[in-house]
């Protein structure tokens, strides 16, 4: 520390560290002082830092510190957030899976509701849906289809493993309104019959 060259190098080091922009040797000298050899100090510092996690680099005559290129990957961290897919996204995904390849207009006609751009983006970002070429009809609409990642996530060997309409019906997942109505009706009739039996003036038991 008593070595003037070393003190000067420290000053250059601190100046570059605190700088908001890369600096030329002349700019560095304006801080570190005129008495030292800026270039020699920079060369020494560059050597000092060569093997470290931080390097001193020159770009177009200006110098700055940067993290070592081989460590770039650690400076971004992935975080997994468990999130619920929106109802619109689940429905859109289901329609694509059952009808692929399918255009946006077709998805909307099945859903009966428009879909926002974000919905398809979410599905594509999740890696489950991909653009699947244009349909050769007027307007050449883009179509969408599912990906192998979609099959993997949902544990399907192929799209043929998706339960068919009849399977859905059997599972009670396809519950049309009139089926429900019939069920209600039957229940009401049965109740009426019971009443008749109880109150009948001409009860068979009287015979």
């Amino acid at each position: 520390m008593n070595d003037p060259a070393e003190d000067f190098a420290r000053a250059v080091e601190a100046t570059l560290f605190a700088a908001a922009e890369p600096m030329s040797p002349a700019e560095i000298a304006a801080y570190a002082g005129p008495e030292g050899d800026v270039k020699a100090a920079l060369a020494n510092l560059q050597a000092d830092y060569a093997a470290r996690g931080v390097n001193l680099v020159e770009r177009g005559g200006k110098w700055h510190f940067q993290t070592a290129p081989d460590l770039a990957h650690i400076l971004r961290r992935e975080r997994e957030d468990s999130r619920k897919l929106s109802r619109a996204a689940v429905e859109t995904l289901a329609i694509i899976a059952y009808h692929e390849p399918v255009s946006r207009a077709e998805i909307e006609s099945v859903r009966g509701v428009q879909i926002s751009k974000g919905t398809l983006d979410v599905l594509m970002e999740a890696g489950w849906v991909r653009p699947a070429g244009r349909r050769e009809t007027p307007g050449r609409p883009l179509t969408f289809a599912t990906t192998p990642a979609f099959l993997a996530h949902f544990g399907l060997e192929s799209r043929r493993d998706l339960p068919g309409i009849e399977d859905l019906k059997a599972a009670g997942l396809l519950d049309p309104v009139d089926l429900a109505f019939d069920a209600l009706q039957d229940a009401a009739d049965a109740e009426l019959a019971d009443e008749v039996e109880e109150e009948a003036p001409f009860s068979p038991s009287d015979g």
Partner: protein
Amino acid sequence: MDADLAFDLQTLPAGDDDQLTLELGSWEGPLDLLLALARNQKVDLREISILALVEQYLSFIDNAKALKLEIAADYLVMAAWLAYLKSCLLLPREPHVEPSPEELALRLQLRLERLNAMRESGARLMARDRLGRDVFARGAPDGLRVVRKANWDVSLFDLMQAYGQIKARSQPVFHIVHRRHVMTLDEAIERVARLVGSLVSWTEIRAFLPETDDPVFRKSALASSFLAMLELARQGRLELDQAEAFAPLMVRAA
């Protein structure tokens, strides 16, 4: 670093106390002024002469009055209190006066010590190597990034359920009126007339009803057959008889 102190500890000019003609605005209240005067005694605050301090304060306030400076009320309140303290300290001590003047003086001294301690600590704090003034963080940090990766929580069941609901929603809805199985009156008249024929023995109405497991149809057949018998009786083609109310209804050909 002293040049950077937010305030100068040596607020008071060195010199004679009666030359203190600074404005009151230089102090933050009577305690601040008292501390400045106390520090002027140039002794440890623990050895300060409270009596001398009181004298200085009172004479300062008097001078300030002479200079026709506006004197804030709290300075005058403190002056009055100090004048009282002074008289207590000087006069022969009255026993049993609580709190004693010595206690009041000690409390004043303790307060001054505490204010002084914090004032000095503040100055030492300000004189430290401060980040952004004396020492610097990296000027252009690259920054660390958190890339959020969504882990979508959706199952095959969710998918199937959603599709089922879309299908259910979009299927055309048919309203079908349920056809009920009934026996019309014409049917009943034809049937009862045929069955009664020339039956001469009294027979219960139940025997004329069709075999059925459908309670609704049975009810309809009973009602229609009863009406048919009333009609046939009116035409004189059969006779009806009932022994009493709710007794079985008996039928035979006329």
